[in-house]
């Protein structure tokens, strides 16, 4: 097999890609071609839940790139996820057209309700799918770049930087809650009908969205894995472990940080954009500071600085959340906190670390 060295030596990554390939083929078969009364049949609901997990996993990978490799504990990455989601949500809103409750051919329902007579300027262009997809990358990327440029240049780091990232996502949440912002206020964007003409309710559409999520996760993983295998990856480690050493070797630490932070935010944006059509809604709650913290916990649980660990953590913790919020909803936050403490104290290298230790012992 002609695999590049950086991938060939990444055993855990190859396993991950194989699992994604199996899911990408198997899940559509089990949903579309297995009869609903068959025990192996997967409902559209299950397909969507799995797709959601994959989106979370991509968000976790993007966080691991900046936290695990570059040492920046970002507690605001859900903001980039939500912004990507809003960009796609705006496209989906425009797709509704005259089928809304008020039947306005151009204005989304919430704007009619607010007695707005025309579309705000920043909603223009979002009726084009290509433009919306571009914005999914540009908007989170631009915000991350501007934020990173100023924060890193003024050498804010450590816990102060983490607090600023929390403030960023909190400020965005408050802004998006306001009706005057033009993003649907606290209801957000919802009642989507179709994407590129395909009904979001159709099983086929859901399966395609699931496959796209698997592809995006695989692509995001490969991009990050490749990046950390280059000399750039070693520079990131140098910045994480000794920023001054990197600087006195001639590296422009601020620029490297801003660049990688931007890339990471774009990946988070893509994850958000794939998430929204699957769950059918995006609202300011996605900017909640707790969301970003939860995402960091996924990475810690799986094992930071490994990329694969981020995927494992995101899927397992969210599986536990789905199960627990169904069975004992009030317990979830305590369970999450307990999990974080346990992992920090007992498993500093996360589940991946545990697996590696078992392997070495065997």
């Amino acid at each position: 097999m002609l695999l590049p060295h950086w991938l060939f030596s990444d055993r855990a990554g190859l396993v991950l890609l194989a699992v994604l390939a199996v899911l990408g083929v198997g899940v559509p078969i089990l949903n579309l071609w297995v009869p609903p009364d068959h025990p192996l049949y997967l409902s559209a609901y299950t397909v969507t839940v799995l797709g959601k997990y994959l989106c979370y996993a991509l968000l976790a990978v993007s966080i691991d790139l900046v936290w695990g490799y570059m040492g920046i504990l970002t507690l605001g990455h859900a903001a980039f996820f939500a912004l990507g989601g809003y960009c796609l949500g705006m496209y989906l809103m425009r797709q509704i057209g005259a089928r809304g409750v008020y039947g306005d051919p151009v204005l989304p329902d919430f704007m009619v309700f607010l007695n707005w007579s025309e579309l705000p300027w920043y909603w223009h262009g979002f009726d084009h799918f290509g433009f919306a997809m571009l914005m999914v990358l540009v908007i989170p990327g631009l915000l991350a770049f501007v934020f990173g440029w100023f924060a890193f240049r003024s050498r804010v780091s450590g816990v102060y930087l983490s607090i600023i990232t929390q403030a960023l996502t909190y400020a965005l949440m408050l802004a998006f809650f306001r009706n005057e912002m033009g993003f649907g206020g606290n209801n957000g964007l919802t009642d989507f009908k179709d994407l590129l003409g395909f009904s979001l309710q159709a099983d086929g559409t859901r399966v395609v969205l699931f496959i796209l999520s698997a592809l995006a996760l695989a692509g995001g993983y490969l991009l990050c894995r490749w990046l950390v295998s280059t000399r750039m990856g070693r520079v990131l480690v140098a910045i994480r472990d000794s920023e001054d050493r990197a600087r006195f070797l001639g590296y422009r630490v601020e620029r490297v940080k801003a660049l990688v932070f931007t890339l990471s935010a774009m990946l988070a944006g893509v994850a958000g954009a794939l998430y929204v059509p699957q769950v059918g809604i995006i609202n300011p709650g996605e900017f909640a500071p707790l969301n970003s913290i939860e995402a960091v916990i996924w990475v810690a649980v799986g094992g930071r600085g490994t990329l694969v660990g981020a995927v494992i953590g995101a899927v397992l913790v969210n599986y536990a959340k789905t199960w627990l919020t169904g069975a004992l909803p009030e317990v979830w936050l305590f369970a999450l906190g307990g999990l974080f403490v346990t992992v920090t104290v007992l498993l500093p290298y996360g589940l991946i670390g545990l697996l590696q230790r078992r392997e070495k012992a065997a």
Partner: protein
Amino acid sequence: MSELVSELDAAGLHTPIEPVDATHGILLYLEEVTVSFDGFKAIDNLSLYIGDGELRCIIGPNGAGKTTMMDIITGKTKPDTGRVFFGQTIDLLKLDEPSIARIGIGRKFQRPTVIEPLTVLENLELAMSGAQRLDRLITARLTGEERDQIHAVLDQIGLTEHGGRLAGILAHGQKQWLEIGMLLMQKPRLLLVDEPVAGMTPAEMERTAELLRSLAGSHSVVVVEHDMGFVRSIADQVTVLHQGRVLAEGRLEDLQVDPMVIEVYLGAGDAYH
């Protein structure tokens, strides 16, 4: 294309690297430099000249301002007043840390600082001059010449057998050598070496002295050190720093009988004898 690359030169710096002009025999000029932290003068009207190819030792009690002086030369701390020039023409106060590193000033920290999760070879490669450009960050192919440079340095610092080992598992002394090796990869003209033998065994100290002596001549080397035996073994020109100024300058033998110097060191206890 190359223009685009330098435009995108994220990690690096676009400014052309000016050759150092040390025609007057002086490589580094510090003139009337003062730095205060909250009113406390860590460096007080300090003037110091380092000759081209010279090996200079700087001694002085704790808090004398030795590390702060290196911070100023390398751009980490900007002085309140004074001039700092590299050769006749390069004003170091106008440059930031990465630029200063790139024009040929390498610095070893007081606490050995190598990148522990990387191998010895990777550490050296990271420090290689020219490795900092964006296009070189993602296409990390080494030229034959660069490979040779890495192996020459590896040999020079005596770690030939350890190239593939992780820097984190090296002995303390080996880490110090690796860090000096990283400076050499930068192809510097001036090396600033802060306390290289702290915590070393006598044998390691001897090898370090040999290494630093071998670098003088082709490089200017400034060594800050507390260990008098070590200072005696490497330098004949010694500067004594005290309360942010030069207290005395000269040969170590003469300084050791200088009453002013004795007074400062007696005040600081026995550690310096």
